[in-house]
């Protein structure tokens, strides 16, 4: 069933655009060019951060962190291997992508840990970045309970990513 989602989405959006007398091919080209620009802007960060993450991994620091976090993660039902990802996700989007890509390569994209990593990356955001950008632009100094509520949403995301992956994929 999930195999239909992506091809149908592509077909439907083009068909709808045609019906509205728009030019889907040219629109896609414009968007794809923007994508290339976006990619160019994140490549340097990916190189630096994957270097740092590879160093951390080979030093044994990530393993140590996972072991240290194991009791807390077990309590929430989240795989301890994802400790590094969980800690970095609210702070930096590109660092989270680097850590996540490394995790998926290490354990395999179809492993339970690999899938949990993918769901975590897909369903959470860079919380502190969003807070600083939006509140900075609106001139807010007192954030009241925003950080608490947003971090609770993140925690829910990490726990639910583990739960849904286990429910839908463990055989």
């Amino acid at each position, binding site marked *: 069933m*999930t195999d239909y*989602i992506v091809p149908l*989405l592509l077909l439907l*959006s083009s068909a*709808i655009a045609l019906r509205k007398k728009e030019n*889907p091919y040219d629109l*896609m*080209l*414009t*968007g794809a060019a923007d*994508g290339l620009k*976006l*990619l160019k802007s994140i490549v340097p*960060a*990916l*190189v*630096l*951060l*994957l*270097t*740092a993450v*590879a*160093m951390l991994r*080979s*030093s044994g*620091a990530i393993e140590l962190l996972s072991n240290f976090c194991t009791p807390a993660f077990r309590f929430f039902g989240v795989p301890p291997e994802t400790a590094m990802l969980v800690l970095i996700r609210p702070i*930096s989007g590109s*660092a989270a*992508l680097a850590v996540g*890509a490394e995790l*998926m390569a290490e354990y395999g*994209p179809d492993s339970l840990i*690999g899938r949990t990593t*993918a*769901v975590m*990356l*897909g*369903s*959470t*955001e860079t*919380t502190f970045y*969003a807070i600083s*950008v*939006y509140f900075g632009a*609106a*001139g*807010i*100094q007192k954030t*009241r*309970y*925003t950080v608490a*509520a*947003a971090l609770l*949403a*993140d925690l*829910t*995301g990490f726990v*639910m*990513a583990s739960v*849904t992956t286990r429910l839908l994929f463990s055989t």
Partner: protein
Amino acid sequence: MVMSWIWTLFLLFSVIISTFQGRISNVSAAVAEGAQAGITLAISMAGSICLWSGVGHLMDKAGMTDGLSRLLRPVLCRIFPGTKTDPQLRKDLSANICANILGLGNAATPMGIRAAQRMTDPTRPGIATDEMCRLIVLNTASIQLIPANVAAVRASLGCETPFDILPAVWLTSICSAGIGLSAAWLLGKLWRHD
């Protein structure tokens, strides 16, 4: 500045811990490997990022943003009562949420900022309003139709069904948005303006 601290701390921990574990030669080798992995990752995601950025742009221009905002209007009115009296706020907010859903993160941010600016309370400058907190929570829950980057990474690692995580991603996002909004609502009741 945050990134400089993260970068330096990563290096510091690598050096200290590898020294204790006798793995400094591995760390030295990992420097070159990691840099190369950064380029490999970027190239393996390039196709997907371009394609989905194109699809997002197409869906926006094909009127899916307008359709989505119509669908979302009843929900938005509940979460952000201010949208009932301020049509511009409603427009910015639904554009922000729709762009996030379609995966156009770069387009979503300016509209979210405009919405946040309209949500300020002139009688209490510098203090976050309840609606702003809810806007942040909704944005951090990352409700997204197609997480293209993640799917691209999975595909590059030889996964045959990179999109099979979609239902899990949707379910997770909806739960975290729900819990986050409930928490914000509850805390808003408890945390009076002072």
